[in-house]
């Protein structure tokens, strides 16, 4: 058996700790399909603390930016500070419950 066929596909795991909070990336598991990915995620990431919901998505299904694109894609101009909403103080209730 080669190393390629001994590993199941990789799934990214997102964990929600409280209703209303965002699902946050917790890590990844290997699994042959969504049901076993959920079960593996439950065993690895939901055993230690309170979790109300789990998402899994096959890593290969995630579209991501390439590192080479970062300059044009993600840094549209740090000199244009008026683009960045930094001048408001966001009320606590509006935050997701996590410190920025």
């Amino acid at each position, binding site marked *: 058996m080669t190393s390629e066929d001994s590993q199941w596909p990789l799934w990214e795991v997102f964990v929600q700790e409280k209703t209303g909070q965002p699902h946050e990336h917790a890590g990844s598991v*290997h699994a042959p399909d969504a049901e*076993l990915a959920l*079960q*593996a995620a*439950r*065993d690895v990431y939901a*055993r230690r603390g309170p979790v109300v919901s789990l998402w899994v998505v096959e890593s290969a299904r995630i579209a991501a930016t390439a590192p080479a694109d970062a300059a044009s894609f993600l840094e549209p101009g740090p000199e244009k500070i008026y683009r960045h909403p930094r001048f408001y103080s966001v009320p606590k209730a509006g935050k997701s419950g996590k410190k920025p």
Partner: protein
Amino acid sequence: MNASVEELLALADDRLVLGHRLSEWCGHAPILEEDIALSNVGLDLLGQATRFLELAGEREGRGRSADQLAFLRDPTEFRNCLLVEQPNGDFARTIARQVLFDAAALPELERLARGGDAELAALAAQAAKESRYHARHTRDWFVRLGDGSEESHRRMQAALDFLWPFTAELYAGRGELRAELETLAAQATLELPGDPDFPASGGRRGTHSEHLDHLLSEMQCVARAHPGAQW
């Protein structure tokens, strides 16, 4: 009426022995995720066993703690069924053993959770919640492997054939369990064996297979080598 010490020991020992069997997979399972899954199930069972043993110790009234009951009783004093002490075998046999055990254990826990023994009902309700998840996981594998490749099907059927005679003492007088397993086996393209000519029983009376001696000698060796040690 409250459960007797014997009944509580049966509940506890099934889980103590099966939990120990699953712990033997730690570091040896076919894949990391399954290694963790089996260890998790084993830990749940160990937790359930601890609580049932505590209650048994209280009702016995001889001041024996869960640890003393787990680590200082001899094989003939264990009340677990024969099914759970059978060696792990391959992954298919371990999965089949879980499925066959849960088929009987889950309805029993649900019955106890609704029963009149309030202390036991609380423990059973918690254990049933965990066992529902265990069953989801292992039944999933049961169907996958049964309805999987030629080899996985062959191994799963062999596991079922090997373990079936050990279900006799668990399933006695509970015909509905067979009907339920028929449905699951059909889903897994497996065949449930017929009733064995020589059904194995005796676990509830303390008559065990040789495998329990070996299991207990390993499980109990530290506690027996260092009597009264705290860790």
